[in-house]
């Protein structure tokens, strides 16, 4: 008979090793679909590595891809820390992006020093508003935020299409549903010549560091951890649980909004309805791989971005569907879940009772 027993002490090595191992196992599992698609896995992995680390440009592409994932990963990690299930980062990302083009695409012709911060702040505010609504519905009516944030993603996406065919539509866009481009001085400055990687990455890294510090060192972080780990005890101890949840909801939504700002004002320049290939959902995987630690989010985002960029390049070279990347990402989430179990519990095979009787 098998028994499950909680571990007395969680080892640090395990906490760090399990996400890494999960990522490796997920990549190894990808050999099965690769072979099913008729590709040689070794060659395919080689192509993937080359696609990410083969050149400075490849590396910069990976960093570009990681930028929105750090934002959405932080959004998920902080919310999940408080047991607030924000699955709506995808929608909040688009809210941020819409705010960015609404202000930045010619409405206000301000100098860059004013316009860029304005775009960033309004984008974050739009994302925050997007998470404030479900949090209000949760605390006021008890409506499960998982379902409301998921459904809001669809509502916001349809709203986006409406905007892109209406008020935000680019009059010069030849009828395509896309927004006018953000003014040049409103764009986040690029980091390297002739590369797409932009200063949104710096913002993402700074915010990750701030989040890490605040979580461990501030009273705000203390309250958030207490609410997430045991809301009843936090409430009993005099912590205002609703206010803490609202606070983290605003920050989480704001971070997701910044992902949209960063994509539209850092990379694309204009907004379309396919700005995000599911960055919001992938952010959840990033956060889980990171063990909900902000610094971990950066590392996990780099890994996931490598998988996407590598798989894209491998796909071009070998003709295997790039959905392989989504497979690896989802499998690494499932692996890290199981890994978390192994870190928390010991599985004991106890001597059979029957033999003794």
């Amino acid at each position, binding site marked *: 008979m098998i*028994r*499950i027993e909680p571990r007395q002490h969680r080892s640090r090595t395990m906490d760090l090793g399990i996400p890494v191992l999960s990522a490796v196992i997920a990549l190894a599992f990808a050999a099965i*679909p690769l072979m*099913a*698609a008729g590709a040689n896995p070794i060659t395919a992995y080689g192509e993937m590595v080359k696609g990410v680390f083969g050149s400075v440009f490849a590396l910069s592409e990976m960093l570009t891809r990681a930028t929105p994932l750090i934002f959405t990963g932080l959004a998920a990690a902080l919310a999940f820390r408080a047991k607030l*299930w924000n*699955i709506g980062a995808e929608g909040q990302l688009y809210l941020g992006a819409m705010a960015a083009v609404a202000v930045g695409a010619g409405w206000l012709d301000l100098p860059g020093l004013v316009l860029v911060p304005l775009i960033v702040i309004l984008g974050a505010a739009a994302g925050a508003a997007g998470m404030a609504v479900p949090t209000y*519905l949760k605390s006021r*009516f*008890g*409506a*499960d935020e*998982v*379902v*409301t944030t*998921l*459904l*809001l*993603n*669809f*509502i916001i996406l*349809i*709203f986006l*299409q*409406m905007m892109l*065919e*209406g008020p935000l539509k680019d009059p010069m866009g030849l009828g395509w549903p896309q927004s006018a481009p953000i003014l040049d001085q409103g764009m986040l400055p690029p980091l390297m010549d002739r590369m797409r990687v932009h200063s949104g990455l710096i913002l993402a890294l700074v915010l990750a560091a701030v989040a890490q510090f605040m979580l461990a060192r501030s009273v705000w972080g203390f309250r958030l951890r207490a609410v997430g780990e045991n809301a009843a005890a936090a409430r009993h101890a005099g912590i205002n649980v609703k206010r803490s949840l609202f606070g983290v909801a605003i920050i989480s939504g704001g971070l997701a909004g910044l992902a949209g700002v960063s994509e539209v004002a850092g990379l694309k320049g204009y907004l379309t309805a396919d700005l995000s290939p599911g960055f919001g*959902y992938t952010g*959840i*995987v990033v956060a*889980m791989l990171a063990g909900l630690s902000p610094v971990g989010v950066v590392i996990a985002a780099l890994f996931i971005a490598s998988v996407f960029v590598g798989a894209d390049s491998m796909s071009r070279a070998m*003709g*295997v*569907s790039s*959905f*392989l990347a*989504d*497979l690896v*990402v*989802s*499998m690494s*989430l*499932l692996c890290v*879940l*199981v890994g*978390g*179990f192994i870190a928390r519990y010991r599985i004991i095979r106890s001597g059979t009772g029957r033999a003794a009787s």
Partner: protein
Amino acid sequence: MMDILNILLSESFWAASLRIATPLIFGVLGALICERAGVLNLGIEGIFVVGAMCGWMAVWLGAGLWGGVLMAALAGAFFGLLHAILTVPLGLSQHVSGLGITLFATSVSYFTYRTALPNVSSPPRIEPFQPLDLPVLSDLPFLGPVLFQQTALTWLALMMVGLVWYVLNRTALGVAIQAVGDNPDSVDAQGLSVYGLRIGAIVAGSALMALGGAFLTMSAFDAFFFGMVNGRGWVCIALVIFASWRPGKALFGALLFGAFDALQVRLQTEMGALVPGQVFLMAPYILSIMALVIAARSADYPRALLQPWFKGQR
């Protein structure tokens, strides 16, 4: 106003309502069984995709329509089993595991479809389920077109409502499932297996969810598209709460949703000039959130929902 009245009186409107409700009936019933046993299954969205893809592909490969239905159910059951293993004996977060299953099931489906059909511009079509043509019944005024010209899958969904109600309320198995979702210790103390009941419920519920997906490719449409499930699974999760975990109310909720969606499409054609079409497209999702908000306060959640249970830890 007259227009709305005309729509509400037309048989095509009610036929469409039932048609739109069909996948939701499967989905809500599936989610209901899982949650009655105490496990939230957010894998539903991905299981819909898998059901849609597998059902379609089986038919496309020549398995026949009912072969496709069976394949869809089996595929759903497989992903349900995965969710069950992660959440029941391992007791992992039902939220995260469910989302993981959705991501995994969706990417498996998309990858398989893309790998099987690398370069097609228009998706290959199958011969889907045809409306039943019953002698006499189909020719009845109003009822004929609304009820008796639906496909066999719609009838299967309606029969499932009765079956699930009967099993839950009239059999020892159903009583045990209700008990395990309320207090697993009650089941354990009476010598029944908590794990067995929960895993079984999740697998069965997931198979039903996959049928909802299969309806999309085998009855509503005749091909598989990326993004065709489009949040229907999440809508089901909202509807379960609205239905307070009862099969009869689940049918009612799905029909209400279907009616609203059908109305929305018709209003869109009538009033499309005045209001952007997206307003109508948003309506079903907003309706779901509203249903959730209305139902949430008084919702009588299964007490053990989301609570992991480990043998020998009481």
